[in-house]
């Protein structure tokens, strides 16, 4: 993790750190792994009417 701004407390995650963070959140909310979540996203099979799913989709840049 790197502090990246003139203001303390802004942390840039590496791809691996981002994937670990998102994997934890996806498992907590949906009970599946990040890999399964990404596969469903890429296949267009996620239920995008669910707000918790949309909230996780917005975090995908952490993993890619």
């Amino acid at each position: 993790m790197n502090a990246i701004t003139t203001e303390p407390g802004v942390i840039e995650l590496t791809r691996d750190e981002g994937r670990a963070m998102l994997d934890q959140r996806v498992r907590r909310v949906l009970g599946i792994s990040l890999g399964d979540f990404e596969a469903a996203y890429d296949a267009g099979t996620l239920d995008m009417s669910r707000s918790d799913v949309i909230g996780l989709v917005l975090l995908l840049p952490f993993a890619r």
Partner: protein
Amino acid sequence: MPGSTRAKARDAFLAPLKRSLSCVTPAQLLVSRFARAGDEVEALALSEDPLCLRSARLGRVVQLQLRQQFRILKDDREPRSSRWHVSTCAYFYQLDDESGRELAAWHWHPGVGVDYPHLHMSGGPLGKAFHLPTGRVSIESLLSLLLSELAVKPTRSHEKDWDAILRASERRFIEHRRWHA
């Protein structure tokens, strides 16, 4: 929030945002990898998710989820000192009660379902399935709601200046945004 370089524009966007968040929580602001080229989308979120806050007004804990996507763009028509700027592309703010029941959620996620910025309000005859149109909502205005309306206690270091910090940050946001509410 313009800058002369991609990195400076990013800093000019993130630093005041973190300063505003520090009025409410010492939690860190997590940011995805720096998009050093192109118009790749970046994301930000809180290190504590959900973030638990005590609302004196409600007499209970509320839980905040906060995510945003942004990209850094170059505009060659602007002077060199302000050629790069950050543009928000999506957001997701949600307030739940302590049991996780949704109280209100502000969403803007173009390309995914409803395109316009909207509010979901739980309770009442409409229920949370409806997408109530809004202008685009800044993080600062959400923090202001928490502190002023829900009477969440500000952090000790910002007990006296949180309002000024949020106003200054919001003002910069309004001055430099490329869209209008």
